[in-house]
């Protein structure tokens, strides 16, 4: 039989779930200029958005597979690096996502504010 204890979700898991949906958008905002994986990881971390590399790298490949990113291997010195940047479709998609995000934030802020006033 299911108990209340079984259905409890730790706060950490909820926070992770909340952040998971935003990683794609966060990464895309930084890819107007070409970035290789590690530079993107550091850039996001420097701006306060920590992403696990195990999440970021496969995600970049998936976004490329969906046509939202383009990539090129560039050899710098003796080391090849894969640089990712937004494709034209990626730029359009990011613009739509940004609008959606802003509307979502506005609604959520409103909802939270209403509850606080009560």
């Amino acid at each position, binding site marked *: 039989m299911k108990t209340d204890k079984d259905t409890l979700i730790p706060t950490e898991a909820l926070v992770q779930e909340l952040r998971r949906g935003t990683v794609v958008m966060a990464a895309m905002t930084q890819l107007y200029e070409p970035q*290789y*994986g590690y530079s993107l990881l550091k850039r996001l971390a420097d701006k306060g958005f920590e992403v696990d*590399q*195990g999440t970021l790298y*496969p995600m970049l490949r998936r976004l490329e597979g969906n046509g939202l990113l383009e990539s090129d291997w560039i050899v710098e010195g003796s080391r090849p*690096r894969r640089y990712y940047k937004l494709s034209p479709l990626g730029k359009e998609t990011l613009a739509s996502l940004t609008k959606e995000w802003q509307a979502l934030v506005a609604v959520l802020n409103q909802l939270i504010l209403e509850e606080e006033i009560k």
Partner: protein
Amino acid sequence: MKLIDRYVNEVGDILPDETRKDIENEIRSLIEDRLMDRCEEEGAAEPTEEMVKEILAEMGPPEKTAKGYLPEVYLIGPRYFFIFKKVMTIVAVAQLIAVAVLFIVRLVMESASTGLTAAVTVGVLLETLAILGQGLVTSFAIVVLIFAAIEWSQRKMDVQLKFWTPQTLNEPAPEKISRVGKIFEIIFILLALTVFNIYPEWVGISNQVNGEWRHLPVLTENFWRFLPLLNIAWSASLVLAMYLSVRGIWEPWSKWLDIGIKIFEMVILFFLISSGPLVGVPPQGWNELGWGQEAIAALQNNVFPITNISIQVGLGVALVVSGVEVLRRIFKMTRGVPIIEIKP
């Protein structure tokens, strides 16, 4: 830097061939970037073995790194898993019932011919259990195969869902039964019951000897021992077909009964396929026809083996087609969409 090579190789071993090289290069590039960063942080000119170990430890086991790159592929995905479980349960129960009936029939036949002793009973029981075990394993494989095929084709169809519009919705079909189809079914069942039970010699080779017709049955014991089960399935189908042809519409119980009978027939089909040659004549049987040795040898060595393989392939195809049909019906019934019967 051998550790890096080993790590990258272990990640690559888990990845699909088509993307392996590319991802390996990407992971190597990431490790090297992190090493350079670590060197800068610690003011070292060259990365050390310790730094490599630290970074690899931070990245975690190769399996974890590879996991993110692996596509989500299921043999049977969450969409069909519960239907699969339901079907597997029905198939297992049907097999259990069929084997129980077979066990009783065999006991009755043994007691009529040689008498029923403890040794004979145990022998029949062990043989029946072996059939059940083999049947369960094979039916599991067949059901998995059918569901895997459905899962695969559904993934292809999902692509088409992108172009879905409300206009593509089907108009619900009336759940009427084709009476003509049912009458044909009744005729075929009566024919099968008559031929196999009253005139078994008709299923064989016929020849005129001195103006007199001689019949040589060619179906083997492997077939005849399943006749009682076939009779049960055919009788059930006959009664249902007669009821449906009068009633004219499907009802939930008749649909489920129809599915049950079909599964029962599939179990018998499976037993027939796995029981060995279904066509053959014992050496002394040929005397009836008065044929020459060459003709008999040609039949025994060439025609019968090919016929047996063809029959088994045909029955196998029928089993798979029936399986798909049963699943389609169960799927539609559990989704509440009416079954559309194809009129002859």
